[in-house]
């Protein structure tokens, strides 16, 4: 690529990197060559013949999309022969094309329409009956196909082949009868199916959630960021008349490169859900009743004021959520510290993510990837594509996960350590490194891993000793190794070991948990023992700088974490709680304790878009918050890239942007410091001052968005990694519980998005065939899973993907929270599974 080539296109000298196609070179020079089948992110196919150009000294017309530039090449794109060919190709395409532009969703944004208008004949010479093919075929949950409109460019087919490596679509029949279809009887249900709609140059493939809602020229769009998972895909929101109607991918090579998963593409429907909160609610005589903002804020000030007066600020706690934007999280942190409490957290059963050392482009080019306790397909879908791409380029994938993942067929090695022994596996690899090359670990780490010989590790984890050694070698042997950990890693001890492994092997870390903005929220200091920028509380310089910025004395007392909070609240030590975007009754590991604690609280205020179970039962004041699409704000993705989420439409009813609610609450509580912000960008400007790592981050108003990446190191813990403690086992059953998010039913937002409802399976529990047989369970039968705090009735899914001796229950499916079973970080919960008698109907 370092060489460049100079050629002549239409008499103009053009210099481009070697290896460029003529089509691309012309585009760079601002010369348009019409093309239908070519797409920058797919391999050239040379199918449509629309891009034919004349190249001197080459006989016949040549496809510009498939010709590579050569030094001294002379290209003509506008000769009579070229024009004639274009006219002919377009006329032939139109012979059977239905020309139903008035009812076609692509009209106004259709290549065929544009090209016929620009290069084609005005009247057709074909007057014969057109060929009829299938119309409005429902290919899958997200995509509808009109075979008559298809120009057979095969972009959709090539996407399935090249990007998904899953041939869900293909061309059937031949000649003029050729048509796109799924395999007979199959459903196009890929997680990425919606991308073919963006790819289709005409209106053959249309988006089910958008279909017919507006014409292309009526839409206004804004560049934004998907707020539904930690990838933070760059996308464009489009809408009309105050409604968000469509979401499409946006070019961003560093993040999603234009692709979106179907959750992001079709999941925006929550903006219009009838259950959205439209007014503040205040509890009167035990019932939540609509109130004005003034009434609600007054009630809130009274509630918190009384508690602070009686029991001091430390009786107040603030609970955020990884769904908050950086601005909201930052203001919440500031509010808590300004009020004088350190009881601020957002982690309900997760660990704060470690620094991101790799970008997503690094992942796409990685040589070795260790995927630890994470399932990209369900947790951060775009990563599935990037891992596949890395493997395609010759990278090796190693997976440590309790289940068989969809990605496992790309893996060089797959490890299924016994539940609870994952940390031992990591420590074992560390100890192997030390044994292989003594002195390769810092002295204080050695203790943590001493006594973990290969045999012992193998017997503790149940993994093959030789296989572990191969993994260790692979990690050490490659300069482009990445350790990617996912939502399955929930405790800080294991995280510390994983970080140590990365350091020892030189691999770079990349990690995520189930929350979309966990990294950003942690960076904003929504943690009991950290300041914004994750500086430790004891950091005097950081504290002084913040006090200057906030014009308020700072409470630097370490507070209670979200785990420690509930017992204290039950004892009456913590009496007032402010919850932003979280639903502890559903999400916290110990729901019983949480319910008891909340019942003891004197005052609970929440800001939420929907009435969550927590709000319904325990809140005294509920403030209606805006949802993505309705509010500006920045989100930090799993690789540390900051994206600016835009408000395309106004918040529903009286709802307000979340960051503004926090500022309003602060004003109502008369918290020290100034709380006047004109917009979210102003809050971000303050964040850039408060957190050195975000210093370069700003909203570029011209482009409407920005993409920045921060990189900074901070100590995960001040202690060296500890020896993995033997896993705590709780429960009396005989199957170990594993859990994790499921893409299409991962949280309250997805559950309120009509476009994705129904794409997640009915609440199920996966169980290994042998366990199923032993327990007398058949596939699809109702079963009862009994855990620490109760039982769930679920549908059995007998599957070899689930390791023997374990049962997998999705984290939140149809509002059945796995927390009822007692899933919690660092504990192996043994659950009892039994078949339920089917009532004869």
């Amino acid at each position: 690529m370092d060489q460049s080539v100079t050629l002549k296109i239409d008499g103009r000298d053009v210099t481009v990197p070697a290896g460029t196609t003529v089509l691309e070179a012309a585009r760079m020079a601002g010369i348009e060559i019409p093309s239908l089948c070519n797409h920058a992110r797919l391999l050239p196919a040379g199918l449509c013949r629309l891009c034919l150009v004349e190249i001197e000294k080459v006989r016949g017309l040549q496809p510009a999309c498939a010709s590579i530039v050569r030094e001294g090449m002379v290209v003509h794109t506008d000769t009579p022969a070229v024009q004639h060919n274009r006219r002919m190709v377009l006329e032939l395409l139109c012979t059977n094309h239905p020309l139903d532009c008035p009812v076609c969703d692509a009209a106004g944004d259709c290549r065929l329409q544009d090209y016929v208008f620009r290069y084609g004949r005005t009247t057709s010479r074909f007057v014969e009956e057109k060929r009829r093919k299938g119309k409005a075929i429902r290919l899958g949950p997200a995509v509808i196909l009109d075979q008559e409109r298809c120009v057979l460019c095969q972009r959709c087919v090539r996407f399935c082949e090249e990007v998904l490596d899953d041939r869900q679509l293909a061309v059937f029949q031949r000649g003029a009868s050729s048509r796109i279809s799924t395999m007979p009887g199959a459903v196009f249900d890929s997680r990425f199916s919606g991308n073919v709609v963006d790819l289709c140059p005409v209106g053959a493939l249309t988006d089910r959630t958008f279909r017919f809602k507006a014409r292309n020229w009526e839409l206004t769009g804004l560049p934004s960021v998907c707020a539904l998972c930690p990838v933070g895909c760059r996308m464009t929101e489009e809408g009309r008349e105050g409604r968000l109607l469509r979401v499409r991918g946006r070019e961003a090579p560093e993040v999603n490169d234009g692709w979106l998963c179907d959750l992001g593409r079709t999941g925006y429907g929550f903006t219009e859900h009838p259950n959205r909160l439209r007014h503040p609610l205040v509890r009167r005589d035990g019932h939540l009743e609509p109130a004005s903002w003034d009434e609600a804020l007054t009630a809130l000030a009274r509630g918190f004021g009384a508690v602070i007066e009686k029991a001091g600020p430390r009786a107040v706690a603030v609970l955020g959520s990884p769904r908050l934007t950086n601005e909201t999280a930052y203001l919440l942190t500031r509010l808590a510290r300004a009020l004088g409490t350190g009881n601020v957290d957002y982690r309900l059963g997760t660990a704060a993510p470690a620094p991101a050392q790799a970008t997503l482009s690094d992942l796409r080019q990685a040589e070795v990837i260790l995927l630890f306790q994470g399932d990209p397909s369900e947790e951060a879908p775009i990563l599935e594509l990037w891992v596949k791409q890395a493997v395609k380029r010759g990278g090796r994938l190693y997976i440590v996960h309790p289940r068989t993942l969809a990605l496992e067929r790309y893996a060089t090695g797959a490890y299924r350590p016994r539940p609870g022994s994952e940390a031992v596996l990591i420590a074992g690899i560390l100890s192997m490194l030390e044994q292989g090359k003594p002195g390769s670990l810092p002295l204080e780490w050695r203790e943590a891993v001493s006594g973990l010989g290969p045999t012992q590790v193998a017997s503790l984890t149940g993994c093959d000793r030789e296989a572990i050694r191969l993994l260790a070698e692979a990690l050490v042997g490659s300069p482009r190794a990445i350790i990617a950990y996912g939502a399955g890693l929930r405790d800080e001890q294991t995280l510390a070991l994983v970080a140590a492994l990365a350091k020892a092997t030189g691999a770079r870390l990349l990690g995520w948990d189930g929350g979309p903005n966990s990294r950003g929220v942690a960076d904003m200091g929504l943690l009991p023992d950290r300041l914004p920028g994750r500086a430790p509380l004891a950091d005097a310089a950081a504290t002084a700088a913040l006090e200057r910025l906030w014009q308020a004395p700072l409470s630097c007392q370490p507070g209670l974490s979200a785990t420690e909070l509930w017992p204290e609240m039950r004892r009456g030590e913590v009496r007032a709680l402010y919850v932003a975007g979280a639903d502890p009754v559903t999400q916290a590991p110990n729901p019983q304790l949480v319910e008891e604690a909340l019942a003891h609280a004197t005052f609970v205020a929440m800001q939420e878009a929907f009435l969550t179970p927590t709000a319904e039962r325990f809140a005294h004041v509920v403030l209606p918050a805006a949802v993505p699409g309705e509010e500006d704000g920045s989100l930090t993705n799993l690789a540390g890239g900051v994206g600016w989420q835009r408000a395309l439409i106004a918040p529903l009813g009286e709802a307000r942007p979340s960051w503004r609610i926090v500022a309003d609450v602060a004003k109502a509580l008369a918290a020290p410091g100034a709380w006047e912000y004109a917009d979210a960008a102003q809050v971000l400007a303050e964040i850039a001052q408060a957190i050195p790592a975000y210093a370069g981050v700003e909203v570029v108003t011209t482009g409407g968005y920005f993409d920045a990446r921060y990189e900074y190191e901070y100590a995960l813990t001040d202690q060296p990694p500890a020896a993995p403690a033997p896993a705590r086992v709780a429960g009396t059953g005989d199957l170990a519980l594993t859990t994790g998010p499921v893409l299409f039913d991962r949280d309250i937002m997805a559950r309120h998005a009509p476009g994705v409802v129904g794409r997640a399976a009915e609440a199920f529990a996966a169980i290994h065939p042998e366990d199923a047989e032993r327990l007398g369970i058949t596939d699809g039968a109702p079963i009862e899973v009994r855990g620490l705090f109760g039982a769930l009735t679920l549908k059995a899914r007998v599957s070899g993907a689930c390791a023997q001796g374990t049962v997998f229950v999705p984290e939140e499916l149809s509002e059945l929270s796995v927390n009822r079973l007692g899933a919690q970080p660092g504990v192996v919960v043994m659950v009892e599974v039994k078949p339920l008698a089917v009532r004869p109907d």
Partner: protein
Amino acid sequence: MDAIFQMVRGLWVTCKRLVWRPVTVQYPEQRPQIYPRFRGRHVLGRHEDGLEKCVACGLCAAACPTGAIYVEGAENTEAERYSHGERYARLYQVNLLRCIFCGFCQEVCPTGAVTLGSEFELARYSRADAILCKEQLLAPKG
């Protein structure tokens, strides 16, 4: 000489009108005659089978120089069919206060659905009433 001629000509016109019947129409007691190409309130036509002609293509709204038309499409289902084909107008509104009766909407409509009809009594007591919805615009069935 010329001035006298002009005066006589003017008087001649006056005298001629004296014996003509008055052209004033005693509206509303008397209904005026509407010519075929008169451009009055919009009518959304139906096919012979009673289905709506409009397919919500939005071209009328795009062509309208005053932004008087608002169209929102939706998909026909087997159970609820409004038009032939897949697409129909879920909403079709005309703001009579904006419309200048230029007829562009009628000219651009690919299905001949919208036509400017003969109704000219368009005064309303409120601005909101001047926004006609699909049900008010649709030609009666049959």
